[in-house]
Structure formats: structure tokens, C-alpha cells
């Protein structure tokens, strides 16, 4: 299963490193990353592969939420299909 991680917030040093760190320690493979900075607002989107994750979905979300709290950003992880179904015919 593929999931999309979105990180939205004020740009600070080390956001990418911390989010990738959380992924790697859960054995979650990052397939693709895009990021943009508009003024000082940071938006990063990661497509990740979570089939071989060493932790469950809830645990992964909690560890990402913790990164969100540390970096003062809002982090969501959601099944890829929700975006595919809403935006592709």
C-alpha cells in the first residue's frame, strides 16, 4: 500500500531530515518527494511505500505527529487512494 505524507507549516531547518528519519526508522520506503516554499510556508509531499513497514499504521502516524509537534508543522499520512479517487477519473 502506498500512502501520501504531507507536511505543512513554517519553514525551519531539518524538517525533511526529521520526517525521513521517522520513515526510515519504521522501514518505510520514500518513493517520491516534492516540496515547495511559498514565502516562508513550507509544503512537502511524500509518496511512501508502507507494505514493509516495521510498525503499524497508527504507530507510524503517531511518530509523524510527534515530528510535527517538534517542528511546529502539520503532518498528515493518508492512503494514496483517497487522492486518486477524488482527483483522477
Amino acid at each position: 500500500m502506498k500512502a501520501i505524507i504531507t507536511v505543512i507549516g513554517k519553514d525551519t531547518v531539518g524538517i525533511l531530515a526529521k520526517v525521513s528519519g521517522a520513515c526510515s526508522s519504521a522501514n518505510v520506503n520514500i518513493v517520491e518527494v516534492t516540496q515547495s516554499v511559498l514565502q516562508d510556508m513550507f509544503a512537502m509531499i511524500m509518496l511512501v511505500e508502507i507494505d514493509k513497514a516495521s510498525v503499524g499504521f497508527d504507530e507510524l502516524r503517531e511518530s509523524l505527529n510527534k515530528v510535527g509537534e517538534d517542528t511546529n508543522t502539520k503532518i498528515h499520512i493518508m492512503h494514496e487512494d483517497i487522492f486518486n479517487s477524488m482527483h483522477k477519473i
Partner: protein
Amino acid sequence: MLETKDILETINMIDNENLDVRTITMGISLLDCLDEDIDKACVKVYDKIMRSAKDLVKTGEDIEREYGIPIINKRISVTPIAMVSAPCQSKKVVRFAYTLDKAAKELGVNFIGGYSALVQKGFASGDYALIESIPQALSETDFVCSSVNIGSTKAGINMDAVKMMGKIVKQTAEITADRNCIGAAKLVVFCNAPEDNPFMAGAFHGVGEADTVINVGVSGPGVVRAALAKNGAGKDITEIADMVKKTAFKITRMGQLVAKEASKRLCVPFGIVDLSLAPTPAVGDSVAHILEEMGLEVCGCHGTTAALALLNDAVKKGGVMASSHVGGLSGAFIPVSEDAGMIAAAKSGHLDITKLESMTAVCSVGLDMIVVPGDITAETISAIIADEAAIGMVNTKTTAVRLIPAVGRQAGDMLEFGGLLGSGPVMPVRAGSPAVFINRGGRIPAPLQALKN
């Protein structure tokens, strides 16, 4: 890969615009639970519901977590209990309500619908006793919802049932007067009731349905309003309709995904997605505010019916391509107490019951969650039901009445329910007595529209 703006749009809809799946409703047939002995029948009903829906709440919560989509309610609808209770010939039919309530509580669902009777053409065995028991059933249970279908385009309007329901609505409010008349908020009187409706209080599982089925109701007035606010300035009405359609498409696709996934995980067939814009009292989740965003100063002013007709139609057109099966009520709801914009318009006197009645000719349901003075007569309630049923019968559409007579209160007072049911100002009704008309009884013949064969 997906476009960044699409991903951010979805996140924004959920975080800031109240996008959610309003309900996953499991329909359960109780036709295999019939028994002449009411004790045995209740045990069979309880066992069937517990067996069929044991994983419903957990599955809903799992999908909510994995997909990141709030799923507000998990509900159950069952075969109209009047049919299930008919063989028992018992006066204690209310025991079925206790059974439904017990199952709902143990399963952790939000509501269970189907304490219902279908009497559009006449009363069958079991119907009369069930309707008589509604006030007690709604007063002594917490999660049971009740509905009665008193008319249809094919059958006409059963005026004996209309007369009876006026009294039942009033009694239900009176018996729950100490709890803000909450009983009446769980009772709907229908014309052309859909058999696959996932929304409460009117959900029941029709006899033509499969044994168990998953129906999903979407929501999203806030998303539609935000889309119009963002891009609607200076656009003509055609462009506004297109914007609503595109937004409804996206909302419904999400509902379809959730319905398919729930159906797969529960091993229960997927029934329908109900394409409804269901408001909540939360700020930014109002159908009235969509109409105001289209350019009306206040919901209820002249132009409201036209704006609502456009909205209702565009929601269906956008949604219908997004789902493989569409059903239920599908359209825009206008429950007064559950919609912040409607509450404000009613309070300021811009929205009254006659304007609401004309709006119901073009929206998906009817006079919904309207608080009326406590001294309203049963005949006047019946006459409001008859008017609304006539609109449904002639226009071949569902109409419903959910009135709450506010015992001890007068026009201008407020009745607070809290939660999703919100709060409603007591709205005055028209003067003049319809008593002689209502007390005639009989049946309004089916209109010519019924003769399509």
C-alpha cells in the same frame, strides 16, 4: 504522481472546510426473524443485528484512520418493525424498540433506524400497534429512530394515517418535554420514503433490499461554500452550477471509495451512495450559507427557492457520475435546527415555515427539524404533514416532516438540543383550523402522475 495542488486541496477540505463522510449505515433485513412468540422474535432480532454488525464500528474507525477521512456516524437500519412485529399480535410491540436500543448500545453505533411502518395505502396487521407505540418507544430508548410513510405517488395519501401522525408527533414531544422534546426529533413522517436511505431519523431497510447492505451518506456543504467563495466572484449562474458540480463530484468520489472499502472489509454488498449535502450546526457547514454565497443577502429572501433548486440539481449531476450506485435522498438537506445559516435566518425572521415549504418542493427532503409552538393542535400538525406529502406525491419525490412541538414555548423562544441536532427558534405556524378537513379521514387518490404504465 499526483499534483501537489490536488493533494493540498483535499487536506484543506478536511481540515478547514468540514469535509466528512456523514454516515456508514448498514442495512439489515429482519425478515428471517419473524416469530409468533414476541420473546423469541426479540431474541432473533437481537442476535441477527449483533451478528451482522459486530465489526461495523471498528471497520468504520479503521477506514477513518487509514484514509484520513472523518466518518462521523456508524448506523444501522432494519426492516420496518411493523412487519417484524405483525405475527406476534402483541400489544407490547415497544419491546422491539428496547431490543434495537440494546443492540445499538452494545455495538457502539450512533443510531438505529427502522422502528417504522409503511401505511401509504392502508394499515396492515401490526402497523396500527406500532404507530401507537412510537411515543413510548422514542421516550424510553436513546438510539432508536422511527419513521412512518403515509403517502406515495403510486398510492396517494392515507389521510387516516396523516390524522393519526399529528397526534403521535404531539404526544412524542409531550412525553419527552423534560428532555427538550427530543423524541419528536427522532420521528419522521414520509411521502415516497426511499428504502435505502442511510440518513436518520428516516432510515429503514426496505423489503426489496439484500439481506445486509452498506449505504454511505456523504456531506460537505462547507466545501461547496468555500469553492464558491474562492472562485465565484463575478461568475454567472451557469459557471456557479458547474463549480457546484465539480465539487460534488469530488465529495462523492470520496464517499464511493469509503463505501467500497467498507463493503469489502465487512463482506457485505455495497448498496448506494447518498449524494446529500447534510449541514451541521458547526460554523462553515451550512447549506443556507451556500445560498447566501450565491448572492442572496439572507436565506429566505426571494430567490432562495431558485438558488436551492440550482444547488440541488448540480449536486446530483456532479455526484451521479462519481458513484456506481446512487440512491437514498440525494440532494441538499434543509434541517433548520442543524444549519447555522438557517437558524440565523429563522431567528431574524427572514425564514418562515411557508418559505421553507416552497423550498421543499425543490430540495431533497422536506420540513426538517422545525420547532413549532407547543400549543399547536394535532390537526394543524396533520395538515402540515398533508401539505408536505402532497408536494412529494405530485412531484414524484421524497418529502418528509420532522416537526418538534416545543412544549411550553411560544414563537420566538429557542429550543436547544445540542450536538448534531443543534438548536432551533420556535417558528409560528399559520392561523386557521384545518380540523374538519383532517378529521374526514379516507385517502387522497393517487395523482395522474402515478399512471405511467
